[in-house]
């Protein structure tokens, strides 16, 4: 983002800054969750609270700005005085003081501009920074359902591009809107005072500018919106091609993806060209008006001089002064466009800030948590989904007990576990811990009770230590070591900088198994009352898995456990098993009981138990592998 353009001193800034909002990659595709709102001015007005702490400074910014503008108007008048006075009368003595006055005013003007800019930079950047902090804070509060429906690029564009558009308008736009208005009014007033017929003519010339600006805005906003949309699509292609580069490489589809990108880039190109055409017309028009007015002024002014109602010096001053209007008049159009863009940006930012977090903590805390977890008639459906993912789920996990959740792929196991720390909220029924509805507990209290090791662990681009202590920043060295030991994550010590090594996307890349072990260590380290293991061991090799399971048994002895499992070995960590069928818990029991009595359960887990003497499994091959192989394929294998 470039430092702000100061339109008062920058004639050609209009092209650059007007295109600025569209100039950033972002995703402005229809946002599913947020209703389209176009409140523009109100949204922008609400941003004023960020200026409030700076009221005093704002006074010191606006005052010099006004005074400097005044001086800019006065200097040519001094010139007029010199031409009409000393020059006309041949009075050399009067010349020096007037010239010194011009010098003093010139120095003062520069000094005031300096003061304004210097102070303003602090204020506007502070506003932007605080807004960004607030948006970030709010985004962290918004639940998973929100984040699932928004592309991160969309959010990013709001904290970067949109905020700088708002910053620019709050800092410069409004100031210049006022200054320019003041300047135009003052200059026009002076012109009227000098010679009212010509002054009136100049004043009237502002009318076509305003009218055209307003009309132009509509078309311009549309096309720049479109450019934003298309750049958003392009950004999505970019992001996916970067994150999915391994898949693209694996299939050698680089050219195909580049083709997709090319199509998107072409679209952006075409819309940008339309924008270029539109704005070139508009900005040209803005320059024509003052020039034509100037010609008229000269013509009529000459007539007035001829008729003796105007002195030559006054006409010189008049034209000089009028030239000062050329730029403000065209800038007026530009600032109106900028204002419109700021309103849109404010809308977009408020879309996020006004989204109420659906998941808000209660105030409760459990004094001495035991970790008695109950699902009571729980239903969950994704927003807008016809069918619930989970329905009428009842499950009781006593303190210290461990339950394995078993179910087919996509049966809602992960969703079920996410209801405990309220990453999602139940749509009916309730989840309780020690008899407290989880919704009554404060979020920090609840989430310190529950820790989850996810199957697809998120590692941040930070040191190993920072990643491990995510849930407990005050963990001691011994505790960290113990957690590493439990998760069999000793490999971290062999990383180049040990625990200080940066991992994650921007650091050392780790294998799937290593990442899972770190995620497990992280969950264990936060010493939860309730430990959720969401198929955490899937990427481990058998030897490591055995060691980890051994260690986990100790951890799970003290904590209540929920273990999502695909394999018998993991199921065996649990005291009992809950089988998830058709969105509800159909059976609860011990592994062997279920294996013996529930065919669906057997179907889910028995293949891993190739040697399990389940009656309907025929005698298997000599390899001892693949009990379920049919003979034909076995034959094919040999």
């Amino acid at each position, binding site marked *: 983002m470039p430092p702000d353009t100061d339109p008062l001193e920058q004639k050609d800034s209009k092209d650059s800054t007007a295109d600025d909002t569209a100039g950033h990659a972002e995703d402005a595709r229809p946002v599913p969750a947020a209703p389209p709102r176009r409140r523009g001015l109100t949204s922008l007005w609400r941003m004023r609270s960020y200026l409030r702490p700076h009221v005093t400074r704002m006074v010191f910014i606006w005052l010099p700005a006004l005074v400097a503008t005044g001086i800019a108007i006065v200097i040519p008048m001094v010139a007029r005085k010199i031409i009409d006075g000393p020059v006309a009368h041949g009075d050399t003595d009067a010349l020096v003081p007037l010239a010194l006055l011009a010098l003093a005013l010139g120095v003062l003007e520069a000094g005031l501009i300096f003061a304004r800019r210097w102070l303003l930079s602090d204020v506007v950047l502070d506003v932007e920074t605080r807004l960004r902090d607030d948006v970030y804070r709010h985004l962290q509060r918004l639940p998973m359902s929100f984040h699932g429906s928004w592309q991160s690029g969309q959010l990013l564009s709001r904290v970067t591009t949109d905020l700088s558009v708002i910053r620019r308008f709050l800092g410069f736009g409004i100031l210049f809107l006022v200054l320019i208005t003041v300047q135009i009014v003052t200059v026009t007033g002076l012109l009227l005072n000098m010679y009212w017929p010509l002054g009136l003519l100049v004043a009237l010339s502002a009318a076509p500018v305003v009218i055209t600006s307003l009309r132009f805005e509509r078309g311009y906003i549309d096309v720049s919106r479109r450019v934003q949309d298309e750049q958003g699509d392009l950004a999505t292609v970019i992001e996916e091609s970067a994150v999915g580069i391994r898949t693209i490489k*694996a299939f050698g589809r680089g050219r195909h993806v580049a083709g997709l990108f090319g199509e998107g880039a072409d679209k952006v190109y075409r819309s940008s060209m339309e924008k270029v055409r539109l704005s070139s017309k508009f900005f040209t028009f803005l320059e024509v008006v003052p020039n034509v007015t100037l010609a008229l002024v000269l013509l009529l002014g000459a007539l007035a001089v001829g008729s003796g109602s105007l002195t030559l010096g006054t006409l*010189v001053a008049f034209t000089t002064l009028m030239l000062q209007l050329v730029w403000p008049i065209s800038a007026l159009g530009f600032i109106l466009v900028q204002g419109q863009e700021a309103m849109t940006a404010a809308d977009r930012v408020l879309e996020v800030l006004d989204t109420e977090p659906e998941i808000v903590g209660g105030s409760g805390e459990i004094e001495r948590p035991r970790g008695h977890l109950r699902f009571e008639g729980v239903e969950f459906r994704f927003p807008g989904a016809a069918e619930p993912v989970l329905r009428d789920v009842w499950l009781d996990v006593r303190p210290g007990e461990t339950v394995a959740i078993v179910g087919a792929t996509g049966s809602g196991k992960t969703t079920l576990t996410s209801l405990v720390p309220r990453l999602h909220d139940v749509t009916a029924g309730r989840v309780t811990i020690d008899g407290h509805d989880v919704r009554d507990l404060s979020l920090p209290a609840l989430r310190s009770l529950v820790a989850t090791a996810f199957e697809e662990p998120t590692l941040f681009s930070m040191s190993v230590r*920072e990643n491990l202590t995510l849930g407990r920043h005050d963990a001691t060295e011994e505790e960290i070591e113990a957690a590493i030991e439990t998760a069999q994550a000793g490999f971290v010590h062999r990383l*180049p900088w040990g625990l200080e090594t940066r*991992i994650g*996307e921007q650091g050392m890349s780790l294998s799937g198994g290593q990442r899972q072990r770190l995620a497990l260590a992280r969950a264990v380290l936060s010493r939860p009352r309730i430990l959720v293991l969401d198929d955490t061991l899937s990427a481990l090799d058998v030897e490591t898995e*055995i060691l980890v399971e051994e260690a986990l048994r100790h951890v799970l002895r003290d904590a209540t456990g929920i273990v999502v499992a695909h394999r018998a070995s993991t199921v065996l960590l649990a005291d009992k098993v809950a089988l998830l069928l058709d969105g509800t818990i159909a059976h609860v029991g011990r592994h062997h009981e279920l294996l013996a009595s529930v065919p669906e359960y057997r179907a889910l887990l028995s293949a891993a138990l190739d040697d399990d003497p389940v009656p309907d499994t025929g005698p298997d091959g000599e390899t001892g592998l693949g009990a379920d192989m049919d003979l034909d394929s076995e034959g094919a294998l040999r």
Partner: protein
Amino acid sequence: MSTTDHAGPAETAGTARPDRPEHGQDGQHGQDERAWRGVAAEKDDDSPQQESLVLRSQSRRLLGELLRPYRRQIALLVTVIVVCNAAALAIPFLVKVGIDSGIPPMAAGQGPGTLVTVVAAILVAAAVQAVSRQVFLRMAGRIGQNILLELRRRVFGHFQRLSLSFHDDYTSGRVVARLTSDIEAISEMLQSGFDGLVTAVLTLVGTAVLLLVLDAPLALVALLPLPVLLLFTRWFRRQSSIAYRRTRETVALVIVHFVESMTGIRAVQAFRREPRNQEIFAGLNVDYRDANVRSMRLIAMFMPGVKLIGNITIAAVLLYGGWRAIGGDVKVGVLAAFLLYLRQFYEPMQEISQFYNTFQSAAAALEKLAGVLDERPAVAEPREPVALERPRGEVRFEEVEFSYLDGTPVLPRIDLVIPAGQSVALVGTTGAGKTTLAKLVARFYDPVAGRVLLDGVDLRDLAEETLRGAVVMVTQENFLFTGTVADNIRFGRPDATMDEVMAAARSIGAHDFISALPEGYDTQVGKHGGRLSAGQRQLVAFARAFLADPAVLILDEATSSLDVPGERLVQRAMRTILADRTALIIAHRLSTVETAERVLVIEGGRIVEDGSPDRLIAEEGRFAGLHRAWLDSVSEGSGAPAGRG
């Protein structure tokens, strides 16, 4: 695992720690930063100052290449802008003529002839200015957009060509930053700075000439401060270029942290990471603000500075001009015109500074893009690719060695022949080198020594398309692209019909769950496949690989997220899929290995056992041990004695 093993490093880690401030109450995020960010071998593209000379020549070259096709148009553009400026400059001049020569005859009663001519000339000049300006804006806009399009395509294409080893270091966040915010910085310059600069320079020169023509002595007074101005501008340019780099670096950190915490929001919330995140973000945000403050303050000094010089000159011209006008050496009209032109003379200086702002940001961005374009793919395309008519899938390693960039050997030396059509399982502990071996076959990396051959052809002699048509690797990372399930399955073979897509899904057992989705094969998979579970994504990835129908299929832990029925289906399918193709299978679960005809046990980058599963089990070696452990792990739950393994 013995704890003594770790004592050494753990201690080192401990001593590195004391300066680490407590959570929530440190204002000194600067010191803190290393603690949370951790240490990494920085392959930083945020170039240090001393490298900047090299990079600048790189970016100059890139700029030259980009502009070359438009040489003529740019020349024309300059002509147009000259005309435009001439017209713009003519207007105040004509006003002066009107006042000096049009009004006196009228006052003398000789009619308005001259004046009308002058006014007409002003109108013509205004029209010329308007037309030429419009032409300029459009042409410049088109050239700018064309360059942008070319740059986008070029950088994107180049990123796609660069090898995985590059992407491993560079990371996706930076790729995104390059292709969005850096391109935009350049776009801003192309859209704004260019004509500003041309106009400014031309106005500057034109006005100087006009001033000299009008009255040479007066002009010399007016132009006297020019050297000071140039020095001042140079100071500003240097300072702002430094400030600009800093701004870009800090904003990049803000963006990276933002994107990462939004992508990982689930872990953030589950582990109550919010306050710490906020603290880190606020710190980065403040850094960014400070960088911005610095660059804005530079402008706050520069702009009024130029104004000051201009105003002092005006006062001087007033004094000197007034004095000479009193003496009768200068006409009043000339003095008036002088004052008008002086404004035109000093305003462009402000524009030049403005241009430098966008230019500095664009230059910083261009440096980075040029740096990317200068990267050579470590896995390069062959100059003369060898055609591979019908790949059979025979894979051969000849004295292959591989080590990472830092010299750590991964594969000391491997000789291996995999006949066409054979299924081979790679077994060994984490870090033994299984994945590296597989990646060499897929040519994600090139060996340091020796050759990898497919059907007798060195992989380095195969065009990427040929190679990827013959060898496909499925990994744990099952990236799904925005689009429908069918789109994703079709990714490996875009011309496949719907029937083929469904057949592929059916054969690996994904058809049932896909049909059960709300819109079946047309269901959108969501952001990064988020609407599907991990297991479902893996099944889609399998279908994708199967549909691509390669001669060599590499499966690297490709079934880890599947549940048992899913894995069973996949295994059943693999017997057909793998029947007539070469396969390399890496799996921790030995159940996946069972489809293989041959097992290679790898340890420390060497093949320590090689043979059919049965034979290896009988030989009671490493594999037999692993196999027994696996049987124990799976049979534990049955309560029955471990099988007969």
